């Protein structure tokens, strides 16, 4: 090793220099390979930047969208390098990653930006470094397009002159006149074409009466449901009938399908004592053990009577 760094003649110096260069080249290659191995495996099929506006007044916010599509499902696109923005300021950043079944991953980043000063604003390409499995796992840099936007000076806000206003009104009037003439001409042409065509008639099938949607159930109707279920229970004292009463009471109280009694009671005001007691009685009658069932059913019927009376 010492010979490499302490040459004695010109030839030796040249040889030593070559060895040193080869060592350095080898080291750089090793570092590059190690870095390449750490890159994610991605096949990028789309990488683009689009701007919502091509010219925009200074200070007005608009959106710049970066779209990436990778063929890998649930791809890790965190290594995407955002573009440099000149004469623009970023106001917001929103990211959406959508894994698409059988079609890889879609990544959308929406930047909310605004122009800093009148002139030209540029957005340099965004890029992502990755090893592409479809190209033998070689490292690639996938780059997007660049975007150029014109930043206009802010409007002064002063009143337009009388001459400008007249010119503008004349321009609008002329445009409207040309448009009206064009519509009339187009109408005449279409009418002539329609007359030339032979008229055909199609026999339509008879219209079916439309089934009216059932009106939303009023509280009285919900109460009818409880009455009906309670009537069945008073005839047939069984757990199944108690469960029907419970369902009717839960519906009357506005329970969600996944809701249990505890969370339902949290929503029912304490002053509705009859309903709260009936719900508790129904819960007990539906789930109590067999020896205590008949007593629980009696309690439930009694509690339901109070609800109906209230």
């Amino acid at each position, binding site marked *: 090793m010492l010979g490499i760094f302490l040459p004695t003649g010109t030839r030796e110096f040249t040889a030593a220099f070559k060895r040193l260069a080869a060592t350095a080249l080898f080291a750089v290659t090793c570092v590059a390979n190690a870095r390449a191995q750490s890159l994610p495996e991605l096949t990028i099929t789309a990488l683009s930047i689009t701007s919502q506006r091509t010219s925009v007044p200074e200070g007005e916010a608009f959106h710049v969208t970066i779209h990436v599509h990778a063929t890998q499902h*649930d791809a890790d696109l965190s290594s995407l390098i955002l573009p440099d923005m000149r004469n623009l300021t970023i106001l917001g950043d929103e990211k959406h990653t959508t894994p698409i079944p059988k079609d890889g991953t879609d990544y959308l980043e929406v930047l909310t930006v605004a122009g800093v000063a009148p002139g030209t604003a540029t957005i340099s390409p965004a890029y992502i470094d990755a090893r592409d499995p479809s190209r033998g796992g070689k490292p690639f840099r996938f780059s997007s397009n660049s975007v150029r936007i014109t930043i206009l000076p802010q409007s002064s806000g002063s009143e337009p002159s009388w001459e400008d206003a007249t010119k503008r009104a004349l321009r609008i009037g002329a445009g409207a006149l040309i448009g009206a003439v064009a519509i009339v001409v187009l109408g005449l042409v279409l009418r002539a074409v329609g007359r030339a065509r032979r008229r055909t008639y199609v026999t339509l099938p008879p219209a079916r009466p439309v089934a009216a949607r059932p009106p939303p159930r009023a509280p009285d109707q919900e109460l009818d449901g409880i009455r009906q279920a309670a009537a069945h229970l008073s005839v047939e004292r069984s757990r199944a009938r108690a469960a029907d009463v419970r369902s009717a009471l839960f519906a009357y109280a506005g329970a969600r399908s*996944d809701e249990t009694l505890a969370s339902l009671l949290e929503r029912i005001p304490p002053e509705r004592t009859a309903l709260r007691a009936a719900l508790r009685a129904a819960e007990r009658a539906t789930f*109590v053990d067999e020896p205590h069932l008949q007593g629980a059913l009696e309690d439930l019927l009694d509690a339901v009577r109070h609800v109906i009376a209230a």
Partner: protein
Amino acid sequence: MTVRPGALRAAVEQTIVGQRAVVDGMLVALIANGHVLLEGPPGVAKTLAARSLANAIGGTFRRIQFTPDLLPSDIVGTRIFDQRSGEFTTVRGPVFANIVLADEINRSPAKVQSALLEGMQERQATIGPQSFPFPNPFIVLATMNPLDDDGTYALPLAQRDRFALNLYVDYPSREEELAILERFGGGDVPLQQDAVTLDDVRAWRDEAEGVHLEPRLRGYIVDMIRATREPDGARGRYVERGASPRAALMLAHLAKARAVLEGRNYVLPDDIRSLAVATLRHRVGFTYRVASERVNVQELLESFIAQVPAP
């Protein structure tokens, strides 16, 4: 006459302010003969909750601080040669107690964790040639701090399954924190002694065996467990492995214990619903996305449960 579990709850709540779900969870596990994994940030009374429960039932209490250099024999016990008698004598480890607090269980390597977890399953320990049964009741309350991952050994899913419940001890509310300052600001926290006896606990366990569970509630439990195995697209990305049938068995068992705690001899849908998240939290295998996207596990599991219509 047997004292009701409500008396034990009242005794523990003399020491623990708020945290009703945690206190109830520990009592339910005690009645169901299960073990509890307590997770939460430091300083939220995880250890105090375990100590207050042990004092209130009048049993023996041992605390084992898990460290990286802990050995299995430090937990289970060992045999020592007595030179005077010329025989080996057995020295039982701290695991031989009614309530064992395994503090920061994930600070020790798998070998040490296994020594405790095997004991939890078998309810006995083998020292040398002889097996020794643990006292009855025997309950392990293990704590874990989910914030410090450095120097920890995560419990594998199969070992976490040995715990009946995984309770998350959250920070108290402002009112609760004010009450803590008012009650204990002066010094040591007083612990309620012997509110119930070990015989009472054994009687509750017998009672829980006879609690009525309606067939439609069994269906509710099974549907809830299956919802974790067949998640839809949005939730499916977060679940690697759903809960096992053992989770269903345990949830049914715990629901019966909760019915006893509430003074009933029949299970209600509320019993199942209130214990579902704590029963499933450590039994469902989540993907890396839960950590990387900082998904709230509690809310994720709640969404699974909300898919299942209540009976």
